[in-house]
């Protein structure tokens, strides 16, 4: 329940490291909305094909209806989900948080980074955003920061690589 920059944490939720988080760009909200809407429409349309083309009966409308509802609910949650994404650079590690329903906080020490990756999808590119991915030797770390302005992403990448170099450790 901590989806604001200055959270009033409900006693049961998580907030392991109180303080200010770097949030993703506001434009990412639009990007996420568009891509959610796009995929929602595509899947709904695909699942509606048998009902429209073959006219097998009213039950064939169940799947598209469910998908449409899921898409609408997801769309409604997007603003909160985007606000929940945050990261923070500390002296020796990077913190990353994500999720509202399924909250997740990750701490990755700089010395453990193996690779920093920047990817840009078509919609994000139009909005001037990029996605930054941190890779460690563990497949489970899963730190992907979406919706960073390109300059910020590039700065962050160079900064992380430079810091990781000074704190380099084995596996």
């Amino acid at each position, binding site marked *: 329940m901590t989806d604001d920059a200055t959270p009033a944490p409900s006693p049961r939720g998580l907030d392991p*490291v109180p303080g200010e988080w770097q949030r993703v760009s506001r434009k990412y909200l639009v990007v996420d909305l568009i891509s959610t809407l796009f995929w929602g429409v595509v899947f709904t349309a695909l699942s509606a094909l048998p009902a429209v083309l073959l006219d097998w009966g009213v039950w064939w409308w169940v799947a598209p209806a469910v998908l449409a509802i899921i898409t609408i609910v997801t769309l409604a949650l997007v603003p909160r989900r985007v606000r929940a994404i945050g990261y923070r650079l500390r002296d020796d590690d990077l913190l990353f948080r994500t999720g509202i329903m399924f909250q997740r906080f990750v701490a990755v020490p700089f010395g453990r980074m193996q690779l920093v990756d920047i990817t840009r999808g078509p919609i994000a590119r139009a909005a001037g955003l990029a996605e930054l991915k941190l890779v460690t*030797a563990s497949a489970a770390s899963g730190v992907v920061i979406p919706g960073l302005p390109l300059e910020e992403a590039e700065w962050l990448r160079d900064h992380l690589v430079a810091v990781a170099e000074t704190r380099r450790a*084995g596996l």
Partner: protein
Amino acid sequence: MTQLADGEWHRLHPATPLLRGGIAFIAILGIVIANLRERLVEIFLPQLACPEGFCDSDPLTIVLDHYLLPALLIAAGLLIVIIALFWWSWRMHTFRVTDEVVEVRSGIVFRSHRKARLDRVQGINIVRPLFARIFGAARLEVSTAGSDANVQLAYLGSGNADGLRGEILRRASGARAGAAGAAGAANGPAVPAAEGVERAEGVAVGASPEVQRGLGDIARQRLAEFAAPELDPALAPVTSVVTMHPGRLVGSTLLSSTMFFFLVALAGLITVLALSDAGIFLVFAVIPTLFGFGSFLVRRITRSLRYSIAATPDGVRVGFGLLSTSNETLPPGRIHAIEITQELLWRPADWWSVRITVASHSNRNGAAGQQNTTILPVGSRADVLKVLELVMPALASGDTRELVEAGLERPRPDDRFTTSPRRGAVLRWFSWRRNGFVLHPEALILRRGAIWRSLSVVPTARSQSVAVHQGPVERALGLANVRVHTVQGPVTTAIGALDARDAQTLFGEVAAADVAAIRADQSHRWGGS
């Protein structure tokens, strides 16, 4: 010490093509003999010659009767070409070991050149499959992190393999001062008994400038901890610290869950067959199953019968196998997580098994078709503590020993583990009292399970990152779970159903401990500099 490591290119054991193609060769021979059986019968027992008209259409007969000479020529030519190819491929397959890297070049048409940095070595495995063992040859695998990232030297002479392993490890340890080499040369050929002493000197020589240069107090203390037991040759015994009693091995196998499920399945099968009066089919259904399971049991037992584990200056050496043997050396700091588990039926006997997560994943299996992640197949509690002391020397002090022992026991109020709250029982029906953790500066210790007890130890110097999670159900209960990320492996390094506050505190503390441990960690060059 061994001239194979002089930085020049060397060839492998001359019998390599035969050994590598050994199984295929025998199989082809078998097929040929099986096909020629009729022919052989005819040659030796002419009165049993095949009936008129039957053999005439056999292509072999036609060839033998009409084209004997060309057939022989073609066969001979093929044989020569094959032998030449094998010989050529053997000549092109070379390796060298320098101060920095180990390299292998191979291939005739498609050339390959594989190079591994010695300071990235995750372990060295010497495998002697039965067939190669007969010829006194061994396969040396230098493993680095990643899947199928092994540099294989197959095959070497058995003695050479041991010498080369010692030399690679000595160089990888960073103790490569000239004096160390001289000490090695002075001690003559690498007999196993001299190996420990000789290498220990190498470590001493490498370690002293390290201390003079100084890498901060923490580093020095850490180094001293690592170096201390290694400097004393008396503490590097060649004998195994754990003896595998055949009785315990057989007993533990019979009492394992696999055996239990097999018996249940067998009983079910027999009941079904008996009730449906299938009579003779019963035999056909049950016997192959019995054979399969019997071979599984025999494999398991023969693999572990000659199990040994010992500390050497260059890490823990674990040996397996009765007929085909494997012998793996894991340098210090290459073990990413340890898990001590107990089968349900082992509890009265207080037996445990220990498995580990390491960064290298060999796509070839161990001596008996098993991944080499189990480093203690079965052992008493004392054995477990001895093994733990070898693989994680930091946990060997009396204080932490107590902690580990408490982790194997049923929970007590004063055992320093922070356990799940009562409401955790919703998610951990039986184990919520036991489900808990302790953070030691060197390692995170996770205790789980009431029926199948397990204890995971994750060295903070090896964990990659840490996460705290909470889903909606956990939110409603005020619980959370913490997961320490390590490289991929069999050990579970997560603990769920903790009080949300405890979980968050743990998250913060583990994150801080990881950073401190990374700073202090010097284990990639365990011999100093």
